[in-house]
């Protein structure tokens, strides 16, 4: 019920509506990819159709070296991009919010241990270690998702913790403690619902970031070589000399795919945040995007919300 209300609110928001529509189109594309794609994107046997320009049969032409249909590749690529983005985003949110709530509410030793791990994780340079790990454990998507989760949760845990620290002094938490509530009960019934909306928002924003990161990794040749993803399409276009031959569509197509998916997630994320926190209305989305890239955006949102419980009730 509550989730439905939130979606309705997002749809009413101008920012969110566009994001939701794009997201819906992308999701449908990903789910029904085999029905939509005109050719098999994995078919590399079309010797006579290499490096074609866009025409009525191949809407976005074919690749230079293997003759795969670019439009079909683009549609299949949606699956990987969206899948990785959403799965990783959810995993990060679950892990980050649970550990953040535990650190904030339990305090003492638990807080110390979790926050020291967070401190260490936040200063480790991500890319070199990612390259290292994918080289050791193989280039499967499971490994890639795990790596993203490993580096993604500390930021969220830290912001959630700061929110929990404010919330645990609320009178209703005191009242529950006085009635003899166990710590688990308070965390599950009072604290976690209190940060849930913010976690949903950060899921949307993190998913967008993860999709860019996945494309980047695939472009560097660190993605799963057996699957078609937008990053890998870019990488192939680059290595087969698409720029040299003037076949710009091979670069633009996955570029637009990446842009649309990231853009829709960002829009939805910003819409959730505007719905929850009317104080952040004034800023343009470019400014927000810049802040988000610098990693200061979530902190700011959390800071301006003095009482998460009250904003929700309106």
């Amino acid at each position, binding site marked *: 019920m509550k989730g439905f209300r939130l979606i309705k609110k997002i749809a009413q928001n101008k920012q969110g509506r566009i994001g939701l529509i794009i997201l819906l189109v992308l999701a449908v594309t990903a789910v029904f990819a085999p029905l939509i794609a005109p050719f098999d994107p994995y078919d590399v046997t079309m010797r006579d159709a290499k490096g074609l320009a866009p025409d009525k049969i191949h809407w976005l032409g074919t690749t230079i070296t293997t003759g795969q249909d670019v439009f079909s590749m683009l549609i299949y690529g949606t699956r990987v991009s969206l899948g990785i983005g959403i799965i990783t985003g959810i995993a990060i949110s679950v892990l980050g919010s649970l550990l953040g709530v535990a650190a904030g509410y339990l305090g003492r030793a638990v807080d110390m241990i979790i926050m020291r791990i967070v401190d260490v994780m936040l200063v480790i340079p991500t890319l070199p270690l990612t390259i290292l790990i994918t080289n050791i454990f193989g280039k499967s998507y499971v490994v890639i998702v795990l790596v993203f989760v490993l580096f993604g949760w500390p930021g969220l845990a830290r912001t959630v913790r700061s929110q929990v620290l404010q919330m645990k002094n*609320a*009178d*209703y938490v*005191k*009242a*529950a*403690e*006085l*009635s*003899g*509530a*166990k710590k688990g*009960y308070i965390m599950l019934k*009072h604290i976690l*619902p*209190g940060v849930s909306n913010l976690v949903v928002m950060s899921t949307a924003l993190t998913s967008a970031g993860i999709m860019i990161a996945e494309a980047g990794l695939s472009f560097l040749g660190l993605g799963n070589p057996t699957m078609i993803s937008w990053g890998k399409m870019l990488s192939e276009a680059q290595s087969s000399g698409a720029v040299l031959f003037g076949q710009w569509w091979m670069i633009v197509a996955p570029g637009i795919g990446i842009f649309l998916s990231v853009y829709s997630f960002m829009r939805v994320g910003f819409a959730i945040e505007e719905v929850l926190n009317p104080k952040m209305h004034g800023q343009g989305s470019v400014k927000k995007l810049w802040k988000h890239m610098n990693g200061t955006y979530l902190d700011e949102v959390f800071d301006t919300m003095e*009482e998460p*419980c*009250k904003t*929700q*009730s309106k």
Partner: protein
Amino acid sequence: MRQENLKNNRDILLETRNLSVEFPMKKKFFFEKQKMLSAVSDVSIQIRKGETFGLVGESGCGKSTFANATLGFAKPRSGEIYFNGQPLYAEKKSVQEARLHMQKIFQDPASSLNPRFTVREAVCEPMRIRGGFDKNEVERKAREMITAVGLTGKDLDRYTSQFSGGQQQRIAIARALILNPEYIVCDEPVSALDVSVHAQILNLLMEMQEKTQTTYLFISHNLAAVKKLCSRLAIMYLGKVVEYGDAAKIFANPVHPYTKALLSAVLTVNPNEETKRIVLKGDVTSPINPPSGCRFCSRCYQAQKDCADRECVLTEVEPEHFVACPVVTGLKADIEQ
């Protein structure tokens, strides 16, 4: 000496003996000596079963800290608390056990009820946490309580944030009373509400007390409310009890200069009546490393030179009426000699 004055030990629900609560201050330098903020210092009070005990004093004088200590939220630095004759802080378990009979009504009803909860969830929460009740029993009890505080059964399905302050406080009272606790701390239960609903809430509290024979610790700034509700009271200043005893006697014959100043500030019904206001000068002394003697002496209009060093002990000035003032007790000692 005061213990002998007790009529009967069985009448006492809660007793504190020389209770002190201190909070450590943040150090500015690593090697700095640890400063302590003395919130409650050397308080010995007895609260009898079924009465409403008032706790009066200005902001920051330690009323709430005292109440929290009796609820097991603030560990005392020294002294003891006995609840039903059992020491409260003896073991971890004893706090948990005592809390089965305790509840609190908070100052701000909006923040004492989770806005994500429906009224049913909020009111039933203590029963659900305690466990061992079947669904029908919980539902029946919730309906009974919610009608007892003047709302209807329909309201059970609405969210707590949809109610006005006065209604929210009624819900909070229903929640506090649902398990029939013996001891309820009312921490300024009306000061966050509109003046128009003050009387309603206070009347409701009194009504419920008549039904359930609960004991209230009533914390308030509002002296008129205290006069109406409380049978006995303690007046606190900067963590110490300055006057303690029967409410009627204190209101009729305030002895401590601080009490006199407080009572002189109460407005009277008759506008033509000339009242002498005692206006205190200066600010409250810092509770960090306070003076050893009387803590009120820097603002006292009756202070003598050595008040800051003279010991302040609660002394009986008349039956059921104790005062801690070096001047008053000094005079009394002189007379006795």
